[in-house]
Structure formats: C-alpha cells, structure tokens
C-alpha cells in the first residue's frame, strides 16, 4: 500500500506521478487535475498564489490518503498540491488512484479531492483583472 501526499513549489509532473502508481495488480487508474481558470464568481482572474500551513497540511494530507485506503481497500493513491505563484492553466492539484477495478479508482479519487479541498490548510490568493487581489475563505 503506497500513499503519498506532497506540497510542491514547482510545476507538477503528471507523467512521473502516474508512472509511480503503475502496479501489476492494478486494472484501473483514475486521475483528477485541478487547473487555474481565468474566472471565479463572475470576476476575471489573472493568476493566483497558494500558501499553506506546511507542517499541518502535510500531516492532514497524509491522514486523508490513509483514510482513503481504509475506505477503498487495495488502492494506491497519490496527491500533490502546488504552492506559490500560479498562472492560468497551471496544474493546482493532482490526485491519482490506481486499483484493481474502476469503482474503487473513481470513488477514491473523488473522495480524496473533496477531503483535500475541505480539510487541508491551504489558502488561495487570487489576482483579478481589475488589479485587486483577495484571499478566498469559502464559508460552508
């Protein structure tokens, strides 16, 4: 069982991550990529910056992957989240799951990204077309 969570200041190399999840017992592979888009809530976005409470984010990310392995036995999962300055189109987050069958791969991939978005202490600072910028603190 391999589970790995990482924060990265550099661009995410999806090919390397996908190759790390190859296994002879895996018959399914599912990936989710979050990309930086050029708009949010009706405003033009020029770019953004991610910051994290690194120590806690790494711990919480590893916890999420361990919980995913409990919920979806037999998977191998990996998640990398960017930090620092990002441009439109950049990969912000990558989640990959390999498993024997597609149900676990799809299910775990969806579960992991949802948990990462709601639990891991990472914050997005958006720069807008009008020149201002703001932290996003979505209130559930």
């Amino acid at each position, binding site marked *: 069982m391999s589970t790995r969570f990482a924060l990265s200041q550099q661009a995410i190399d999806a090919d390397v991550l996908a190759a790390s999840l190859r296994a002879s017992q895996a018959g399914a592979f599912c990936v989710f990529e979050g990309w930086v888009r050029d708009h949010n809530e009706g405003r033009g976005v020029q770019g953004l910056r991610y910051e994290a409470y690194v120590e*806690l984010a790494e711990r919480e990310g590893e916890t999420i992957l361990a919980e995913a392995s409990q919920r979806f036995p037999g998977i191998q999962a990996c998640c990398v989240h960017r930090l620092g300055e990002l441009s439109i189109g950049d990969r912000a987050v990558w989640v990959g799951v390999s498993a024997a069958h597609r149900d676990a791969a799809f299910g775990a991939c969806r579960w992991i990204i949802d948990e990462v978005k709601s639990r891991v202490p990472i*914050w997005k600072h958006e720069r807008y077309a009008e020149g201002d910028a703001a*932290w996003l603190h979505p209130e559930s």
Partner: protein
Amino acid sequence: MIVHVLYFASLRDASSLERESLSHEGSLRDLFENLRERYGWRWTPAQLRVAVNGELTGWDRSLQEGDEIAFLPPVSGG
C-alpha cells in the same frame, strides 16, 4: 506564560505578522478574542479551526507554556 501564534492568509494580512510571541494567561478562546479585537478579525471561533503544536485540536484545549497556536480561516485549496 509565553505562547507563539502563527498567522495565515487573511489573518496574517490583518496582523501584518507571520508569527508573534505573546504573554497570555487564560483560555484559547480568550487568546482568540484578544487577537480578534486587536487585529479586527471578522471571524468567530465557530467559523475557524484551531491547531496547537501542529495538530488540529478543540477550542477547549488548555494552553501550556511555549505552545504554538494557529487559527485557521476556511481553506481554499484545490
């Protein structure tokens, strides 16, 4: 006692500090209310999570000398 407070995202912008060390007697909630007043934070404890020494914890946790405290506004990764 002396405690250390870490600031992130909008809380850091409001305090203009990444971290500071404070003399504090009282509860975690008291500390939060003092800082909320000082820096004009709009958040209430019900809206935030709190971590002590790098671990998420409850608002009723008692503080000890040298604790490192972080108040976490709603996250926006992904």
